């Protein structure tokens, strides 16, 4: 039995850290060397001397923050060595380029799940099951009340929601990287054939996806649009930050929705202030987390990013899996 200090990967200053390699994973403050699981801003910070990620994540990051960062890239499954530790990326199914990271040292395997989902998503690589001894998993939706519907069902609901109110402009708020592209991909396969407009931040990410070979439906940049009347019956995708404040005054006769896993709970839906919620998530639901934990064959599991109390207790009681706590 080892003490917390001797774990290959541990929590330090609120971030995951591997001392042996002196490398941080998705650090929230500038460090020398950072492994980046994916290009969402809550997993990235400016000012690190060197970043390491998948090729796709590197391209998306540069698109978002400029070329001015030093970033080394590897393919999925390609092993590289730092201080004698073998490290490699595997697809995590969260967004384009997102990855799990595996460490092997002295025959001991560690796997950081990164943000992940198991659901089908045509805009990124499917989650790959990776075997490990130690698993560090996210658990954003770690309660059994979270059970995602198939994404095509949600897309059909969205299509119905828009077409049932032809006199309105339908606004869906969603993260501009990942969720927006997944929605566009799903909606393009429904009966909704009206115009789709996107905010500049989403438009930019759509182009990056296309450059990386992902087929994303053509949309019109909302900033190029002048006449409000023409927006009737169409769909506009916007980042959530614009849902508050005066931006909405640019439109007339609107209905609004938020696309997020949290929308599966009525109280949160009501409190959110949107007319409608679509429960579609790029994170794993309860079953998804359990499946990954079991299939990884990990004997020891850590959780972060979420309320892990119930999930941990359940795994210990029902599945006899050893759930460990990081010392903070």
């Amino acid at each position, binding site marked *: 039995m080892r003490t917390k200090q001797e774990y290959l990967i541990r929590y330090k200053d609120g971030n995951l850290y591997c001392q042996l390699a002196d490398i941080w994973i998705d650090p929230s403050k500038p460090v020398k060397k950072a492994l980046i699981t994916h290009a969402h801003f809550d997993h990235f910070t400016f000012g690190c001397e060197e970043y390491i990620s998948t090729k796709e994540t590197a391209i998306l990051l540069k698109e978002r923050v400029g070329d001015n960062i030093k970033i080394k890239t590897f393919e999925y499954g390609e092993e590289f060595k730092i201080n004698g530790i073998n490290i490699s990326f595997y697809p995590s199914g969260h967004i384009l380029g997102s990855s799990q990271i595996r460490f092997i040292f002295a025959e001991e395997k560690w796997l950081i799940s990164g943000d992940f989902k198991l659901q089908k998503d045509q805009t990124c690589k499917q989650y790959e099951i990776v075997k490990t001894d130690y698993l560090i998993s996210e658990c954003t939706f770690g*309660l*059994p*009340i*979270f*059970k995602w519907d198939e994404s095509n069902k949600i897309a059909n609901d969205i299509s119905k929601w828009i077409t049932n109110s032809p006199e309105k402009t339908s606004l869906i708020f969603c993260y501009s990287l990942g969720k927006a592209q997944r929605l566009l991909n799903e909606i393009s396969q429904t009966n909704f054939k009206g115009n789709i407009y996107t905010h500049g931040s989403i438009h930019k990410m759509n182009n990056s996806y296309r450059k990386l070979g992902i087929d994303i439906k053509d949309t019109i940049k909302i900033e190029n649009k002048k006449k409000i009347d023409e927006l009737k019956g169409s769909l506009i995708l916007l980042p959530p930050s614009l849902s508050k404040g005066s931006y909405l005054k640019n439109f007339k006769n609107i209905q609004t929705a938020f696309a997020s896993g949290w929308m*599966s*709970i*009525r*109280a*949160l839906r*009501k*409190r959110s202030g949107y*007319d*409608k*919620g679509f429960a579609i998530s790029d994170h794993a639901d*309860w*079953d998804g987390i359990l499946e990954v934990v079991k299939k990884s064959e990990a004997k020891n599991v850590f959780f972060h990013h979420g309320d892990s*109390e*119930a999930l941990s*207790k*359940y795994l210990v*009681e*029902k599945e006899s899996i050893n759930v460990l706590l990081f010392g903070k």
Partner: protein
Amino acid sequence: MSLKKFSELFDDLDSINSTNNKIEVLKNYFLSNDPIDNSWAIYLLTGKSNKRFISGRYLKILFSQIYEYPQWLIDTCYLKVGDSAEVVTLLLKNKNNSRKKKLSNISLNKLLSETIPALSKLNEEEKNLEIQNLWETLPEDNHLIFNKILTGTFRVGVSIGLITKSISKLINIEEEIISHRLMGDFKPSIDSYEFLINKNINLQELNSKPFPFLLANTIEDKIFKNSINDFQFEWKYDGIRMQLIKRSGNVSLWTRGQELVNESFPELVEKMTHIKDDFVLDGELLVWNFKEEIAFDFSLLQKRINRKSPTRSIQIKYPIIFIAYDLLEINGRDIREILLENRRIELEKYFSKWQLKTENNISDICKICDLIFPKDWPDALTYKEKSRENNTEGLIIKKKTSIYSSGRKKGIWWKYKVDPMQLDAVLIYAKGGSGRRAGLYTDYSFALWKDKELIKFASAYSGLTNIEIKELDKWIRKNTIEKFGPVRSLKPEMVFEISFEKIQISKRHKSGIAVRFPRITKWRKDKKINDADSLENAYELMKKIS
């Protein structure tokens, strides 16, 4: 024509914010479904007497037993969701059963008039099996409505007003008529729906129904610019608002919550039956101190409300009175359009006539509301401040030249409530909220000093803004000392101003006092816990009042 359609209606109403759109959706629903299901829909939407077939707790336990889920896991989920019916619905999604769905289109009528009532005739084991069977045969999209009906918690953001408006639009008849037709007991049936949408107006049919109540608004500053003589002043009693109706010889007592409560107050019904005239009186029911001519505390009235067929000794112990303040109908003549000052004259005229008949003197159970005559507005304020002395909540101010319309119409009646009592108290416990506040800590307990100890004296959950709730929720999570299930004990650090209406001795509470309607009126970030009030301060406050 089905539970399925009704579930869709619920989803639509739940996700539309515009009133006009809701009315449109309801109208279309009524148009496309059959009368019996429509009448059930109205019954459910108005939430008039949603019966509870099983408790939310039972529902969760049942789920836990059937699907071998640990109870603590369900309880944890409940904290996030805040509604038992919804928790079970969400968990059922995880139980993707392969059994063939057979009940894909059960009618609302069959479900509510046969399937669910039949449950109460089964023994526990059979009942559990039947609920499981229904869970596994009803389509997933209908589970929420089904569970909500089972637990009697079906509520949606639709007011009676909206139903009234949509029916009114549907058949092109004024809202007032529809509103009146919807008053009182609504028994779901084809007849009740056809009565509701009948285009011929026949007032006879409304015989047993109360009029829609006129409600008072909170006082507005602009009223003080008017002459004091334009208004009628009454005490604001803290009782049960009620219409006392006698039509064709039959007396009925209707509360503002539209419940018929004849059985709880038989002595009043009996006395009023002897009056020769027919009438509709609007007034307040109270438990009355006949010696001192003031109302007893509301807590005594509570001893009468839920008790049907009270014994003679209960009737003597808690003597009731009906204080009439308005006359709405007399011998079949609807006089709501007559001005208040003239209605008052009629009211006084009939009362003196009724009281003259000594053989059935009603004055020991029914009296007319006394009026107050302040000289000017400052004088009105003085009356208001004195209202605690006679156990009233303040004043009701009524415009003399107003008619009796329905609802909370502006510019007719105002309530001028006495200022609340206040104490500064320390937050010591927090509990997770339910419903819309699920997942947040929104139920708080507050304490006062006793020597060097903090003693809990009140719980409150209203008064903070949404932003403050979120801020406090964050603080609570960071400053928890201990968790007991859903309750957290907290570091004593935050001081709040708590307002309440009444304070009295209570043996049931550790603090020795009980307060009525406690609510948070200010987050005193400027105060340290040592600045909070003590129990002694509370006792002094109590002395000052009595």
